[in-house]
């Protein structure tokens, strides 16, 4: 009786959580070797060879990683700075609600908003024009669909920082950093030393798993680079989808090669995190 119930739970877990992922991965794998797919002709390594000889995927990986890394690092730094400096202010009733408001903004809207503000014909460009800083739209600096992915990074920061602020406010409380700071004072540390040797290291240590997870999320981000990215190089999800949806039907398998590689990389990253630390309540 009890056992039966246990088994049902386990089976549901497999069906809903494990099976879809396994099927998707298996399908992509078979497709990448040409085993399935309407215009494919059976097992072949040519798609894998093609992807490995072209630099597109590699460039996209590096490009995405750099953007995700910059996005995460800047967001975390900003959040840490705000929490350490202005922590007490968040006790305020209004501020404590306002700080949650950005969580109601999805990536697609955030990207749209960034575009509206920073495009060469956007709000800031108009202001600059009215202030006679620029005479034509082209003179406004390139901030969206640009080479340096500035628009994407700005959006990532606006999406992640509020989240990290809330996270660090909680860590501050849970890890009793207030008390640890007092203790450090008693042991002779000044404010700067407390920040550098106590508060920061503890907050970073407590949050590194999440930081890595968010890095992985940004690596796979889709909507934001779709709206604010350029045509080449593209971030991973955009690239993979483009390859999967391309005109040349005979090359769709290359998209699946990329999907397989991307999946293997993030799976390895997860296994790595797991081997370093037991993940428990890290679903954010």
């Amino acid at each position: 009786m009890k056992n039966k119930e246990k088994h049902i739970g386990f089976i549901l877990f497999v069906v809903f959580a494990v099976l879809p992922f396994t099927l998707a991965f298996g399908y992509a794998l078979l497709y990448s070797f040409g085993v399935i797919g309407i215009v494919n002709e059976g097992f072949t390594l040519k798609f894998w060879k093609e992807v490995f000889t072209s630099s597109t995927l590699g460039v996209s990986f590096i490009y995405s990683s750099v953007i995700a890394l910059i996005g995460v690092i800047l967001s975390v730094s900003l959040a840490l700075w705000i929490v350490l400096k202005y922590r007490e202010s968040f006790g305020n009733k209004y501020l404590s609600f306002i700080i949650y408001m950005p969580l109601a903004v999805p990536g697609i809207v955030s990207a749209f908003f960034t575009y509206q503000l920073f495009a060469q014909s956007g709000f800031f460009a108009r202001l600059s024009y009215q202030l006679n800083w620029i005479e034509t739209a082209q003179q406004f600096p390139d901030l969206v669909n640009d080479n340096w992915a500035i628009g994407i990074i700005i959006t990532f920061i606006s999406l992640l920082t509020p989240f990290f602020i809330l996270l660090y406010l909680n860590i501050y409380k849970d890890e009793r950093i207030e008390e640890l700071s007092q203790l450090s004072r008693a042991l002779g540390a000044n404010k700067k030393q407390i920040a550098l040797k106590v508060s920061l290291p503890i907050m970073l240590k407590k949050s590194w798993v999440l930081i890595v997870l968010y890095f992985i999320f940004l690596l796979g981000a889709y909507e934001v680079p779709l709206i604010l990215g350029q045509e080449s190089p593209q971030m991973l999800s955009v690239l993979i989808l483009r390859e999967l949806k391309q005109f040349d039907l005979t090359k769709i398998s290359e998209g699946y090669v990329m999907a397989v590689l991307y999946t293997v990389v993030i799976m390895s990253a997860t296994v790595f995190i797991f081997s370093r630390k037991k993940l428990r309540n890290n679903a954010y």
Partner: protein
Amino acid sequence: MRISLKPFFLSIMVLLILFPFVYLLWLSLSADWSFPQVMPDYFGLKNWKALLISETGLLRSFFQSVIISVSVGFTATLSGFVISRNIAYHPKKNTLTLLSYFPYIISPVVFGACLSYFFLKLGIFGQMTGVIVAQFMISFPYALIFFNSFWGEKTKNMEDLVSTLGGNRLSSFTKVLLPLAKGMLLVCFFQTFLISWFEYGLTSVIGVGKVQTLTIKVFLFIREANYFYGALSSCLLILPPLVLMYINKKYVFNKLT
């Protein structure tokens, strides 16, 4: 005495946070706004009226999104709660948790693209059911991971206590575990609702443009460079989460992160 920059900085921060909300609302009330004007030529309810009367289907999308997201949030939260218990008490707990991380961290749109064949096979491709199932597949792992921490030593002791007091599994769920997890359930619902509500890539793949949720609409408007409708649908997209957040304030604020 040093001058404190704190009030100044905090005001800036509040402005920065509120600005997008105000700007999007403003944009949604505007029309005829060409470069380099800072103010639009038209400012009024025109766009909002179009929402109610025209065939753009925005209102329909709104309700469709509500149905999808509530279904996803509800099923993912409840099943996640019940099934996470089996995972947490399983001898191979760590491996199972690792497995549930995979569908959670993979880019949903890539996941969806690799799964679409099976949705076609099941005949739910391009259907609302299909979108709900697909979004469930990414929110369910989230719920599993989210509730992992609920099933600790203390909860186990509670369950034991209920059974020594004569309660069976059902009564321990209905009388103790669910009420105990109320706050977490609310937060999990809120989060899985948002996962679904904000989802674009996966929905566009599995919905093949047939299931037009609000995010899909926003994207359509952006693509046809219709920024005023884009802003309007963005407003519709932001409103429900804000309301939910306000209602859930007490729980969300303590448990969200």
